[in-house]
Protein backbone atom coordinates (compact mmCIF):
# COMPACT_ATOMS: atom_id res chain seq x y z
CA UNK A 1 0.00 0.00 0.00
CA UNK A 2 1.45 3.27 -1.17
CA UNK A 3 0.72 5.40 1.90
CA UNK A 4 2.35 2.92 4.22
CA UNK A 5 5.45 2.78 2.04
CA UNK A 6 5.55 6.57 1.99
CA UNK A 7 5.38 6.71 5.79
CA UNK A 8 8.03 4.07 6.21
CA UNK A 9 10.43 5.76 3.79
CA UNK A 10 10.28 9.11 5.57
CA UNK A 11 10.56 7.45 8.95
CA UNK A 12 13.65 5.52 7.85
CA UNK A 13 15.34 8.47 6.19
CA UNK A 14 14.79 10.72 9.19
CA UNK A 15 16.17 8.13 11.56
CA UNK A 16 19.41 7.81 9.67
CA UNK A 17 20.02 11.46 8.78
CA UNK A 18 20.88 14.44 10.90
CA UNK A 19 19.77 17.17 8.54
CA UNK A 20 17.56 17.78 5.56
CA UNK A 21 20.45 17.88 3.11
CA UNK A 22 22.05 14.79 4.57
CA UNK A 23 18.88 12.86 3.90
CA UNK A 24 18.84 13.46 0.17
CA UNK A 25 21.15 10.57 -0.67
CA UNK A 26 18.77 8.02 0.76
CA UNK A 27 15.70 9.93 -0.31
CA UNK A 28 16.83 10.09 -3.91
CA UNK A 29 17.26 6.36 -4.08
CA UNK A 30 13.83 5.71 -2.59
CA UNK A 31 11.63 8.16 -4.42
CA UNK A 32 13.13 8.88 -7.81
CA UNK A 33 11.72 6.48 -10.34
CA UNK A 34 8.90 5.58 -8.05
CA UNK A 35 7.05 8.85 -7.52
CA UNK A 36 9.27 11.55 -8.89
CA UNK A 37 11.42 12.20 -11.88
CA UNK A 38 14.99 13.43 -11.44
CA UNK A 39 13.83 16.88 -12.45
CA UNK A 40 11.10 16.94 -9.82
CA UNK A 41 13.53 15.75 -7.18
CA UNK A 42 15.78 18.67 -8.05
CA UNK A 43 12.83 21.01 -7.65
CA UNK A 44 11.97 19.48 -4.29
CA UNK A 45 15.45 19.87 -2.85
CA UNK A 46 15.94 23.32 -4.37
CA UNK A 47 12.78 24.79 -2.96
CA UNK A 48 13.38 23.12 0.37
CA UNK A 49 16.74 24.86 0.47
CA UNK A 50 15.37 28.21 -0.64
CA UNK A 51 12.41 28.45 1.70
CA UNK A 52 13.13 29.18 5.37
CA UNK A 53 12.48 26.49 7.93
CA UNK A 54 13.15 22.82 8.27
CA UNK A 55 14.32 21.26 5.01
CA UNK A 56 13.27 17.81 6.11
CA UNK A 57 9.64 18.83 6.51
CA UNK A 58 9.57 20.65 3.22
CA UNK A 59 10.94 17.65 1.38
CA UNK A 60 8.28 15.54 3.04
CA UNK A 61 5.55 17.93 1.88
CA UNK A 62 6.71 18.24 -1.71
CA UNK A 63 7.36 14.55 -2.25
CA UNK A 64 4.28 13.54 -0.29
CA UNK A 65 2.03 15.67 -2.49
CA UNK A 66 3.59 14.20 -5.61
CA UNK A 67 3.21 10.67 -4.37
CA UNK A 68 -0.31 10.84 -3.06
CA UNK A 69 -1.82 14.31 -2.95
CA UNK A 70 -2.69 15.97 0.33
CA UNK A 71 -2.97 12.66 2.17
CA UNK A 72 0.54 11.87 1.01
CA UNK A 73 1.78 15.18 2.35
CA UNK A 74 0.36 14.47 5.82
CA UNK A 75 1.73 10.95 5.92
CA UNK A 76 5.20 11.96 4.82
CA UNK A 77 5.13 14.76 7.38
CA UNK A 78 4.15 12.35 10.11
CA UNK A 79 6.94 9.98 9.16
CA UNK A 80 9.43 12.83 9.34
CA UNK A 81 8.13 14.12 12.65
CA UNK A 82 8.02 10.79 14.40
CA UNK A 83 11.74 10.10 14.93
CA UNK A 84 12.44 13.26 16.93
CA UNK A 85 9.17 13.15 18.86
CA UNK A 86 9.05 9.43 19.65
CA UNK A 87 12.64 9.48 20.69
CA UNK A 88 11.83 12.26 23.06
CA UNK A 89 9.20 10.27 24.88
CA UNK A 90 11.54 7.93 26.63
CA UNK A 91 14.28 6.60 24.44
CA UNK A 92 15.88 10.04 24.53
CA UNK A 93 16.64 9.62 28.22
CA UNK A 94 18.35 6.38 27.37
CA UNK A 95 20.35 8.02 24.60
CA UNK A 96 21.36 10.80 26.92
CA UNK A 97 22.96 8.26 29.20
CA UNK A 98 24.43 6.33 26.30
CA UNK A 99 25.92 9.51 24.92
CA UNK A 100 28.80 8.97 27.26
CA UNK A 101 29.24 5.51 25.86
CA UNK A 102 32.01 5.42 23.31
CA UNK A 103 30.10 3.26 20.88
CA UNK A 104 27.42 5.84 20.14
CA UNK A 105 29.88 8.42 18.93
CA UNK A 106 31.78 5.77 17.00
CA UNK A 107 28.57 4.77 15.28
CA UNK A 108 27.94 8.35 14.24
CA UNK A 109 31.54 8.68 13.13
CA UNK A 110 30.98 5.66 10.92
CA UNK A 111 27.78 7.04 9.45
CA UNK A 112 29.51 10.24 8.42
CA UNK A 113 31.61 9.02 5.47
CA UNK A 114 28.66 7.02 4.13
CA UNK A 115 26.34 10.01 4.27
CA UNK A 116 28.93 12.26 2.64
CA UNK A 117 29.43 9.78 -0.20
CA UNK A 118 25.68 9.51 -0.76
CA UNK A 119 25.30 13.26 -0.87
CA UNK A 120 28.09 13.49 -3.40
CA UNK A 121 26.42 10.90 -5.59
CA UNK A 122 23.32 13.10 -5.81
CA UNK A 123 25.47 16.13 -6.56
CA UNK A 124 27.17 14.10 -9.26
CA UNK A 125 23.88 13.22 -10.88
CA UNK A 126 22.95 16.89 -10.94
CA UNK A 127 26.19 17.87 -12.62
CA UNK A 128 26.23 15.20 -15.28
CA UNK A 129 25.15 17.52 -18.08
CA UNK A 130 28.45 19.31 -17.49
CA UNK A 131 30.24 16.24 -18.76
CA UNK A 132 28.77 16.72 -22.19
CA UNK A 133 30.51 20.10 -21.93
CA UNK A 134 27.28 22.04 -21.67
CA UNK A 135 28.90 25.44 -21.07
CA UNK A 136 25.87 26.74 -19.24
CA UNK A 137 26.12 24.09 -16.56
CA UNK A 138 29.81 24.75 -16.12
CA UNK A 139 29.21 28.48 -15.92
CA UNK A 140 26.43 28.13 -13.36
CA UNK A 141 28.43 25.66 -11.29
CA UNK A 142 31.49 27.92 -11.20
CA UNK A 143 29.39 30.96 -10.45
CA UNK A 144 27.59 29.29 -7.57
CA UNK A 145 30.78 27.88 -6.16
CA UNK A 146 32.34 31.33 -6.04
CA UNK A 147 29.19 32.84 -4.58
CA UNK A 148 28.87 30.18 -1.89
CA UNK A 149 32.53 30.41 -1.00
CA UNK A 150 32.09 34.14 -0.45
CA UNK A 151 29.35 33.23 1.99
CA UNK A 152 26.44 34.59 0.06
CA UNK A 153 23.20 33.12 1.42
CA UNK A 154 22.50 29.74 -0.21
CA UNK A 155 18.84 30.55 -0.84
CA UNK A 156 19.82 33.62 -2.85
CA UNK A 157 22.46 31.73 -4.82
CA UNK A 158 20.00 28.99 -5.72
CA UNK A 159 17.34 31.48 -6.79
CA UNK A 160 19.82 33.44 -8.87
CA UNK A 161 20.99 30.28 -10.57
CA UNK A 162 17.43 29.27 -11.33
CA UNK A 163 16.62 32.68 -12.79
CA UNK A 164 19.80 32.61 -14.85
CA UNK A 165 18.64 29.24 -16.10
CA UNK A 166 15.43 30.74 -17.40
CA UNK A 167 17.51 33.12 -19.51
CA UNK A 168 20.20 30.67 -20.57
CA UNK A 169 17.85 27.92 -21.57
CA UNK A 170 15.38 29.92 -23.54
Amino acid at each position, binding site marked *: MDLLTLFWIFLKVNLLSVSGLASIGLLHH*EVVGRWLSDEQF*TQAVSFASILPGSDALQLAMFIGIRAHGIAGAWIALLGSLLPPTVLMLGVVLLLYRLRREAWISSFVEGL*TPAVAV*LMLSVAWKLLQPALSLDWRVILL*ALGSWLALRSNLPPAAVLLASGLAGIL*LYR
Partner: protein
Amino acid sequence: MTPPATSPFRLWTRLFWTFLKVNLMTSSGPASVGFIYREVVGKMMEEERFIEAVGFSNVVPGSEALKLAMFIGYSAGGMGGAIAALMGAILPPTVSMLLVALAVQQFQDTPWMRGFTRGIAPALAILIAMAAWKVFHNGRRIRKRAVLLALLCLLALLIGFPPGLVVLLAGISGIWLFR
Protein backbone atom coordinates in the same frame (compact mmCIF):
# COMPACT_ATOMS: atom_id res chain seq x y z
CA MET B 1 17.84 34.29 37.48
CA THR B 2 14.33 32.92 37.73
CA PRO B 3 11.83 33.94 35.07
CA PRO B 4 8.61 35.64 36.19
CA ALA B 5 5.63 33.36 36.74
CA THR B 6 3.18 33.31 33.86
CA SER B 7 0.11 31.29 33.14
CA PRO B 8 0.94 28.15 31.15
CA PHE B 9 -1.30 29.23 28.31
CA ARG B 10 0.49 32.50 27.90
CA LEU B 11 3.82 30.70 28.02
CA TRP B 12 2.73 28.30 25.32
CA THR B 13 1.53 31.13 23.11
CA ARG B 14 4.84 32.91 23.49
CA LEU B 15 6.73 29.73 22.69
CA PHE B 16 4.56 29.23 19.63
CA TRP B 17 5.30 32.74 18.38
CA THR B 18 9.00 32.52 19.08
CA PHE B 19 9.42 29.37 17.07
CA LEU B 20 7.14 30.61 14.34
CA LYS B 21 9.30 33.70 13.96
CA VAL B 22 12.56 31.79 13.97
CA ASN B 23 11.36 29.47 11.26
CA LEU B 24 10.23 32.33 9.10
CA MET B 25 13.58 34.06 9.27
CA THR B 26 16.61 31.90 9.40
CA SER B 27 17.53 28.75 7.57
CA SER B 28 20.64 27.94 9.52
CA GLY B 29 21.02 26.24 12.87
CA PRO B 30 23.49 28.42 14.76
CA ALA B 31 21.79 31.70 13.86
CA SER B 32 18.46 30.41 15.08
CA VAL B 33 19.93 29.28 18.40
CA GLY B 34 21.11 32.84 19.00
CA PHE B 35 17.71 34.25 18.23
CA ILE B 36 15.89 31.78 20.44
CA TYR B 37 18.32 32.47 23.26
CA ARG B 38 17.44 36.13 23.26
CA GLU B 39 13.73 35.43 23.18
CA VAL B 40 13.66 32.75 25.77
CA VAL B 41 16.44 32.98 28.33
CA GLY B 42 15.53 35.13 31.29
CA LYS B 43 11.95 35.44 30.11
CA MET B 44 10.83 31.84 29.85
CA MET B 45 13.65 29.77 31.22
CA GLU B 46 17.04 29.90 32.88
CA GLU B 47 20.25 29.92 30.88
CA GLU B 48 21.41 26.63 32.31
CA ARG B 49 18.29 24.81 31.16
CA PHE B 50 18.64 26.37 27.74
CA ILE B 51 22.20 25.17 27.30
CA GLU B 52 21.21 21.75 28.49
CA ALA B 53 18.33 21.57 26.04
CA VAL B 54 20.49 22.62 23.10
CA GLY B 55 23.21 20.14 24.00
CA PHE B 56 20.65 17.42 24.37
CA SER B 57 19.20 18.09 20.96
CA ASN B 58 22.58 17.44 19.38
CA VAL B 59 22.58 13.84 20.50
CA VAL B 60 19.35 12.94 18.81
CA PRO B 61 19.05 12.47 15.03
CA GLY B 62 16.61 14.55 13.07
CA SER B 63 15.95 18.07 11.93
CA GLU B 64 17.70 20.78 13.90
CA ALA B 65 14.72 23.13 13.85
CA LEU B 66 12.34 20.51 15.22
CA LYS B 67 14.65 19.27 17.92
CA LEU B 68 15.34 22.78 19.16
CA ALA B 69 11.63 23.49 19.30
CA MET B 70 10.89 20.30 21.17
CA PHE B 71 13.63 20.34 23.71
CA ILE B 72 13.54 24.03 24.48
CA GLY B 73 9.75 23.98 24.49
CA TYR B 74 9.73 21.04 26.87
CA SER B 75 12.30 22.61 29.12
CA ALA B 76 10.43 25.89 29.29
CA GLY B 77 6.88 24.63 29.51
CA GLY B 78 6.56 20.89 29.78
CA MET B 79 4.65 18.83 27.26
CA GLY B 80 2.37 21.75 26.39
CA GLY B 81 5.40 23.92 25.75
CA ALA B 82 6.95 21.30 23.52
CA ILE B 83 3.80 20.96 21.44
CA ALA B 84 3.29 24.74 21.14
CA ALA B 85 6.89 25.26 20.08
CA LEU B 86 6.70 22.39 17.60
CA MET B 87 3.56 23.77 15.98
CA GLY B 88 5.23 27.16 15.59
CA ALA B 89 8.22 25.50 14.00
CA ILE B 90 6.19 23.34 11.65
CA LEU B 91 3.88 25.98 10.26
CA PRO B 92 6.17 28.14 8.06
CA PRO B 93 8.00 25.34 6.24
CA THR B 94 4.91 23.27 5.61
CA VAL B 95 2.57 26.03 4.50
CA SER B 96 5.15 27.73 2.30
CA MET B 97 6.18 24.48 0.70
CA LEU B 98 2.56 23.51 0.17
CA LEU B 99 2.02 26.70 -1.81
CA VAL B 100 5.24 26.26 -3.75
CA ALA B 101 4.54 22.61 -4.55
CA LEU B 102 1.08 23.43 -5.85
CA ALA B 103 2.48 26.29 -7.91
CA VAL B 104 5.20 24.06 -9.34
CA GLN B 105 2.64 21.48 -10.25
CA GLN B 106 0.65 24.14 -12.09
CA PHE B 107 3.60 25.44 -14.04
CA GLN B 108 5.42 22.16 -14.48
CA ASP B 109 5.36 22.19 -18.24
CA THR B 110 6.08 25.82 -18.96
CA PRO B 111 9.44 26.49 -20.61
CA TRP B 112 10.44 28.90 -17.89
CA MET B 113 9.92 26.37 -15.10
CA ARG B 114 12.02 23.92 -17.07
CA GLY B 115 14.71 26.56 -17.52
CA PHE B 116 14.57 27.41 -13.84
CA THR B 117 15.06 23.79 -12.80
CA ARG B 118 17.92 23.22 -15.25
CA GLY B 119 19.52 26.42 -14.07
CA ILE B 120 19.25 25.56 -10.42
CA ALA B 121 20.69 22.05 -10.77
CA PRO B 122 24.39 23.03 -10.94
CA ALA B 123 24.04 25.48 -8.03
CA LEU B 124 22.31 22.82 -5.98
CA ALA B 125 25.01 20.30 -6.84
CA ILE B 126 27.71 22.66 -5.59
CA LEU B 127 25.74 23.41 -2.43
CA ILE B 128 25.33 19.70 -1.75
CA ALA B 129 28.98 18.98 -2.46
CA MET B 130 30.04 21.69 -0.03
CA ALA B 131 27.65 20.36 2.58
CA ALA B 132 28.96 16.83 2.00
CA TRP B 133 32.47 18.09 2.59
CA LYS B 134 31.38 19.73 5.84
CA VAL B 135 29.65 16.54 6.93
CA PHE B 136 32.73 14.50 6.12
CA HIS B 137 35.21 16.62 7.89
CA ASN B 138 32.95 17.56 10.77
CA GLY B 139 35.28 20.07 12.38
CA ARG B 140 38.04 17.58 13.00
CA ARG B 141 41.02 16.36 11.03
CA ILE B 142 40.09 13.71 8.53
CA ARG B 143 41.24 10.31 9.66
CA LYS B 144 42.61 7.83 7.18
CA ARG B 145 40.03 5.31 8.33
CA ALA B 146 37.26 7.72 7.42
CA VAL B 147 38.61 7.98 3.89
CA LEU B 148 38.90 4.22 3.70
CA LEU B 149 35.32 3.83 4.87
CA ALA B 150 34.17 6.41 2.34
CA LEU B 151 35.87 4.49 -0.47
CA LEU B 152 34.30 1.24 0.69
CA CYS B 153 30.88 2.88 0.70
CA LEU B 154 31.44 4.17 -2.80
CA LEU B 155 32.39 0.70 -3.93
CA ALA B 156 29.37 -0.83 -2.26
CA LEU B 157 27.07 1.68 -3.92
CA LEU B 158 28.60 1.09 -7.34
CA ILE B 159 28.15 -2.63 -6.95
CA GLY B 160 24.52 -2.04 -6.14
CA PHE B 161 24.07 -2.26 -2.40
CA PRO B 162 20.95 -0.39 -1.28
CA PRO B 163 22.03 2.99 0.16
CA GLY B 164 20.14 2.51 3.42
CA LEU B 165 22.05 -0.67 4.08
CA VAL B 166 25.36 0.97 3.22
CA VAL B 167 24.74 3.76 5.70
CA LEU B 168 23.71 1.37 8.44
CA LEU B 169 26.68 -0.93 7.87
CA ALA B 170 28.99 2.08 7.82
CA GLY B 171 27.68 3.11 11.22
CA ILE B 172 28.18 -0.37 12.60
CA SER B 173 31.71 -0.62 11.19
CA GLY B 174 32.31 2.73 12.78
CA ILE B 175 31.80 1.23 16.19
CA TRP B 176 34.72 -1.05 15.53
CA LEU B 177 36.86 1.21 13.33
CA PHE B 178 36.71 4.30 15.47
CA ARG B 179 37.02 2.78 18.88
